Structures are given as structure tokens and as C-alpha cells.
């Protein structure tokens, strides 16, 4: 049970996928036009993450190492398809506003990354809690960005008016450039906090993917699906 709590804390705060690891940037920027959309996307991703972590953890002794990437992708894509149909059937409004970004959950680095680095090596229960923690961390991140954009861009939170009626909404914040601006602001604040804490001598965890997925060593993110090729790559790197 201790381990499960630790997993939740890890996902929500210590390795928060949005603010600390900077993973899954595409949905983070695209669907956070309002708090509702952000929360909906986050929860959808959480469901997929928990289910895929559970199944992959159950199958971890059965899936041969050489075909693990294609196997993980099939598991994740199946759950995404199921969730897509459920959303279309029961929450059509959310389905319409998230649109193309629902099937694109498949290529979200967070899900394959957790499958590869946690669920394929750990028992079922901690893996489920790892999924819940990471998923909720992602949801919190998306909702926070969504709230900021909605307040500045429309003067509302979750569709309710919070700004005085004299407030003129800055529409650009719910359009594309606003996403980049809000994220830039949030990362800058985070950098500032880090700098202040580092001065006080507090040990800060290192950012995992500050430079984007390309530089993060996560093998799930660099897309080699057949292991043979992976070993060849290692050989090539060793030669260098």
C-alpha cells in the first residue's frame, strides 16, 4: 500500500508529466482552449493509461522482449479505440470538441513511456496506481493550462463567468498562439521557482525532457518497434 501511495505522489507532483517531464506536448497545447476540454482530455488519457498499464503489467511475463514495442502499441491503440467509441456514444459534445486528438492519444509519449519504463517491470497493483498518478498529474496540468487560457481568453472558468463584465476578453489566448504563450509563462515560472529553491540549497529533480522528446532517452519515444534494429543501433553507436 505504501508503494501505491508513493506512485500517486510521484505522478501528481514529483514527476508531473506536464510540468516536470514535459511529455505529451501535442494534446497539452491543442485541447486546452477551455478548462472542460483540458480536464476531458486528461481524464480520457488517464483511463487509457490505467487500462494499458494494467494489461501490460499482467502480460509482462508473456510478451517476448523482442516484440514488446509492437505489442504495447497494439494494446494502447485498442484501448484508445474502445475509449473513442465510448466517448462518441455517451459524451458526444466532448467527442466533437476533442476530435482528432482522441485517436492521437496512441502516440502520446506518456502512455508508451510508462508501459516501457514501469508497467512492463512491475506487478499489477503498483502499475495501476502508477497509471492513476501519472494520468491525474496530466489531468491537473491540462486543467491548469485550460483554466488560465479560459480566464484570460473568455473571462470564464468551466463556462461560468468569473471576470467582471467590464473585462474585455483577450481572444488570442483561446486561439493557437495563446497556447504557446501560456505554456511559456508556466515554464518560466517553474524555472524561477527552481532557481530560488536551488539558491536555498534544496535539491531539485532534473527535468526529464526539457528539450522535447527528441533528446529524451526514452526508447518508447524514439519509435523503434523491432528489437533487431535496436541492437544494430547500439552496435552503430558503440562503433562511433
Amino acid at each position, binding site marked *: 500500500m505504501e508503494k501505491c501511495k508513493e506512485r500517486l505522489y510521484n505522478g501528481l507532483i514529483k514527476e508531473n508529466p506536464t510540468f516536470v517531464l*514535459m511529455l505529451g*506536448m*501535442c*494534446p497539452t*497545447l*491543442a485541447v486546452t482552449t477551455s478548462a472542460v476540454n483540458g480536464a476531458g482530455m486528461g481524464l480520457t488519457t488517464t483511463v487509457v493509461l490505467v487500462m494499458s498499464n494494467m494489461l501490460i503489467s499482467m502480460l509482462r511475463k508473456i510478451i517476448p522482449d523482442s516484440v514488446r*514495442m*509492437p505489442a504495447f*502499441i*497494439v494494446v494502447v*491503440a*485498442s484501448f*484508445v*479505440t474502445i475509449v*473513442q*467509441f465510448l466517448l462518441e456514444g455517451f459524451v458526444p459534445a466532448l467527442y466533437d470538441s476533442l476530435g*482528432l486528438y482522441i*485517436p*492521437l492519444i*496512441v*502516440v502520446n*509519449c506518456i502512455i*508508451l513511456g510508462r508501459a516501457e519504463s514501469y508497467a512492463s517491470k512491475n506487478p499489477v497493483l503498483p502499475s495501476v496506481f502508477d497509471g492513476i498518478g501519472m494520468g491525474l498529474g496530466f489531468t491537473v496540468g491540462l486543467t491548469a493550462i485550460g483554466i488560465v487560457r479560459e480566464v484570460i481568453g473568455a473571462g470564464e472558468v468551466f463556462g461560468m463567468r468569473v471576470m467582471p463584465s467590464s473585462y474585455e476578453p483577450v481572444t*488570442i489566448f483561446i*486561439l*493557437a*498562439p*495563446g*497556447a*504557446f*504563450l501560456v*505554456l*511559456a*509563462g508556466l*515554464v*518560466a*515560472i517553474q*524555472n*524561477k521557482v527552481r*532557481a530560488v529553491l536551488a539558491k536555498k540549497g534544496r535539491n531539485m529533480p532534473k527535468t526529464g525532457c*526539457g*528539450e*522535447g*522528446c*527528441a*533528446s529524451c532517452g526514452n526508447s*518508447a*519515444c*524514439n*519509435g*523503434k*518497434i*523491432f528489437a533487431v*534494429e535496436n541492437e544494430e*543501433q547500439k552496435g552503430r553507436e558503440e562503433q562511433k
Partner: protein
Amino acid sequence: MKELIIIAIGSALVNNVVLSQFLGICPFLGVSKKVETAAGMGGAVIFVITIASFVTGVIYRFLLAPLHFEYLQTIVFILVIAALVQFVEMFLKKVMPPLYNALGVYLPLITTNCAVLGVALTNVQKEYNLLKSVVNGIATAVGFTIAIVILAGIREKTEYNDIPESFKGTPIVLISAALMAIAFFGFSGLI
């Protein structure tokens, strides 16, 4: 013909894949430090998206649609794209080593580039035929290349600027991207 040109301009400039649809943000932020590498990444993306939109188009029209397996599209497309990238890499290595040397490093990074899957799914969603799918694919990839090369140019310049400490690194890149996105709004009058 006119329709094809409209699709091309629409995907490359008006609905730019990075700046208005937010697909492929990871390489956009990650591989945009130098103009040369950005152009290399852009070349690799054009190459892969063109092939991928053709192959996924063929699979959808001649395999999934006749068998009424449309609901399998996400699973099939992602596997096809992932496998395709690896085969393209092996093929280039054997047949065209110069091209492989230029693009090889970037190819593996493309599988999880959501732009590739995004284009394949958009083609299905908008019911494009094969020719339109390929044109849409090429135009989207060209749009990606334009955006990433411009961003790399800006980043090369901002490196020497006096930026506030907290904004160094990712934040200033995101702000540059926001300004580019505003500039790209200007294209919306084209169609």
C-alpha cells in the same frame, strides 16, 4: 486541379500542422537548434509523410473499407507507420547511402511524431481520395518544414540576445513559436 491547390495551400500555410494544429510539437521544439538539422528533419518528415499517406490511403480504401473494418484504423495505421519508418530506414541504408546519411538520424524520431498519424487520420476523416491524400500529406509536411526552419533561424539569432534568466531555454522558444503562430494567422485570408 483547383481543388488540389486549395488543399495544398490550406494544409501548408492556413492550417499549419505545427502552429495551428499542434501536431509534431516534440521535434518542433527538440530539433530546431540549428537551421541545418531543422532542414534535415523537415526533409525526413516530407519523405515519410508522403509515403505514409499513400500507404495508409491504399490500406484504408482497399483493405479496411471493403471489409468494414474501419474501426481498426487507429491500430492499423500506427503499426503500419511504425513499421514503414523502419523499412524506409533499412531501404535507404542499402540503396541510397547519401540520402540515408542526410536523413537517417531523424527517421526513428518520426514514428511518434503525431503529425504522421494525424495526416493519415485527417485523410480518412475528410474522405480524400488517394491523390488528394498524397497532396495533403506533402503539403502538411512542407508546412512543418517551413515552420521548423523559420523557428531554427530565430533560435540561432536569439542565442546571442539578453534574455531574462527564467525565460532562457524552452520558454523563449515557445514565445517565438507564439509570435510565428500570430504571423501565420495572416494566411487565413488566402482561401
